[in-house]
C-alpha cells in the first residue's frame, strides 16, 4: 500500500478576471497523515475545489508548496486518484472500459488488469453492468463507476470534488456509507470537498472549514467518532454545530440556515498546530 501523506504550506492562488487579480486562495497550511479522511467544507467561491485541483496537480501555477509523500506536486500522478463532481465517464466506452482507463499505464498483465477492474466494479456494487454504456446508467451508478475508475489503480490518496452533489438524497446517503467503508478497507488517504456540512462531519476524521475572499482555512474540527458511524450520534451533532459556527464566523455564505448554540470557540492558531493536536 502506497503512503498517502500530504503537506500544504503557504498555498496561495490568484486568478486574473477581466484584467483584475482575484485572490482565490491565501495562506493555506494543512498536514494530512496517511490513512486520514479529510473533508473540506465551505460556501461557493471559497476556493475549496481549486485547493483540491492543486493537490491533484491540475493547477500548478500557485504560490507555496504542495507535497505528496515527500515529493512536490508538479502535475497529475497515478498515486492520486481524482473523482470529479460529474462522473465524466467517456460515453463511447463501457463501464468496464472506463474503469480500465485507470490502468492504462499501470504496467499490469492483461489478466491482472481484468481482475483489478472486475474487483473494483464489485467494490462499488456495479457487478452485472460491466458492458453497459454510461447513457444506460443512473446518476448514482455513473458516479460509482467514476469512483471505481479513481480507485482501480490503488492510489495512496483519493481526492473527491463534491462527488455526491448532483445525486438525490437517498443515493447520496447510500454512497457516503459505501465510500466510508471503501476508504477504510483500502486504508487510503481521502480528501473530500463538499458544501454539505452533514456529509463533511459524517465522513471526516477532520473537517477543514474554509471561508471565501480570499479562500482560507478558518478552522479545523476533529471528529474522533469511531467507524462505522451513526448519523444521529450525539458527538456528530455536536461537531456539526461547531462546523456551522465556524462557517458563520468565517463570514458570508453559510450553506445551511439552521443553528443551535455553538459550544466550540473558533480557533485562531495556525492550521498546522491544530493538526498536531489531533483529536482534541
Amino acid at each position, binding site marked *: 500500500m502506497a503512503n498517502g501523506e500530504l503537506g500544504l504550506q503557504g498555498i496561495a492562488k490568484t486568478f486574473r478576471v477581466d484584467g483584475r487579480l482575484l485572490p482565490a486562495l491565501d495562506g493555506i497550511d494543512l498536514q494530512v497523515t496517511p490513512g486520514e479522511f479529510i473533508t473540506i467544507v465551505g460556501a461557493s467561491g471559497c476556493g475549496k475545489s481549486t485547493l483540491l485541483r492543486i493537490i*491533484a*496537480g*491540475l493547477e500548478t501555477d500557485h504560490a507555496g508548496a504542495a507535497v505528496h509523500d515527500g515529493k512536490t506536486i508538479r*502535475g*497529475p*500522478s*497515478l498515486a492520486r*486518484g*481524482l473523482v*470529479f463532481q*460529474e462522473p*465524466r465517464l*467517456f*460515453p*463511447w*466506452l463501457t463501464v468496464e472500459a472506463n474503469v480500465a*482507463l*485507470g490502468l*492504462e*499505464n499501470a504496467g499490469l498483465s492483461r489478466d491482472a488488469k481484468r481482475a483489478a477492474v472486475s474487483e473494483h466494479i464489485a467494490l462499488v456494487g456495479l457487478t452485472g453492468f460491466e458492458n*453497459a*454504456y454510461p*447513457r*444506460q446508467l*443512473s446518476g*448514482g*451508478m455513473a458516479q460509482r463507476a467514476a469512483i471505481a*475508475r479513481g480507485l482501480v489503480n490503488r492510489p495512496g490518496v483519493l481526492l473527491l470534488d463534491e462527488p455526491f452533489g448532483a445525486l438525490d438524497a437517498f443515493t447520496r446517503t447510500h454512497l457516503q456509507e459505501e465510500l466510508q467503508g471503501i476508504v477504510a478497507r483500502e486504508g487510503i488517504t481521502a480528501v473530500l470537498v463538499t458544501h454539505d456540512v452533514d456529509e463533511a462531519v459524517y465522513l471526516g476524521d477532520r473537517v477543514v472549514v474554509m471561508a471565501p475572499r480570499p479562500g482560507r482555512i478558518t478552522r479545523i474540527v476533529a471528529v474522533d467518532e469511531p467507524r462505522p458511524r451513526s448519523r444521529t450520534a450525539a458527538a456528530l451533532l455536536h461537531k456539526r454545530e461547531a462546523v456551522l459556527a465556524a462557517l458563520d464566523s468565517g463570514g458570508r455564505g453559510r450553506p445551511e440556515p439552521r443553528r443551535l448554540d455553538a459550544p466550540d470557540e473558533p480557533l485562531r492558531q495556525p492550521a498546522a498546530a491544530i493538526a498536531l493536536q489531533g483529536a482534541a
Partner: protein
Amino acid sequence: MSLLAYAPPRSGDFTVALLVRLRHAAIGLLVPLTLVLVWALASARGWLPEQVLPAPSYVWQNLRDMAASGELAQHAGISAIRVAVGFAVGAGLGLLLGIAIGLSRPVEDYVRPLFTAVAQVPTIGWIPLLMLFLGIGETLKIVVIAKAAFFPMVVNTAAGIQNIPLSYREVAAVLRLTRWQSLRRLVLPGALPSIFTGVRYSLTKAWTALVAVELLASAEGLGYLLVWSRQMFWLDTMLAAMLVIGLVGYVMDAMLAAAEARLQAWRIDA
C-alpha cells in the same frame, strides 16, 4: 437503477421496428414518386415538346438498353473508380491534416489562414490551372476529386477534436494517458461524429467534382455521358445519366450512415 435498459428486443418490438422503418421509407419516397407522376403527366399531356422532356418510359427504356449493352456499367465503373481513388486520397490526407490542426496549436496557426483562403476558391475554378500542370489525363481527375474531398474532411476533423470538452481532457490528464492512449481512447472516438460528417460531405463533394471534371475533360464516365447526350440532344440518355448519378450518390451516403451507426453504437438509446 433498473435493468430495463438490458431487456433484449422481443419479437413484438421487432415487428414494430420494421413497421416504423417501412413507414419511414414510404415517407421518403413520397416526394420523388409525386415528381415522377407530374413528369409522366406533363409528357402525356404534351405540356412540353417531347424533345425537351421525354416521357419517363423513354428514359426507363433507355436506361435498360444502356444497362443491357454494358455501356452504363462501363461509364459508371470508370466514374466509380475515379471517385474511390480521389476520395481515398483526399479524405485520407484531410483526416491527417485535420488531426494535426486539431491537436497542435502551432500547426493551426501556420496552416489555417492559407487553408481558409484556398478553400474559398470553388473546385471548378482550379480546373483550368490544374489542366496546365497536369494535362487532361487521369491524374487531373483524381487531383480535382481529391482536392474537393480534402477540405470538408480537414475542417470537420479539426473542429471535432477541438470541441472535445475540457472536462474529458482533464480526465485523460489525471489518468496520465500518453498522447497515443488519449488519441485512441478520447480524441478519435470523441471526434468521430464530426469526422463522419466530414466523410459524408467529402464524398458528396468528390462526386460533384467528378461530374464537373468529366464535363470538361473526359471521353468516358457518367459526367461525360451527361455532356455528350446534351450535345447530341439525347435528352432521355441525359436524364438516365442524371438518375444514375443521383442514385449512386444516395446509396454511398446510405452506406456511410450505416457504417456510422455501427461505429457509434454507444449513442443509440437503449
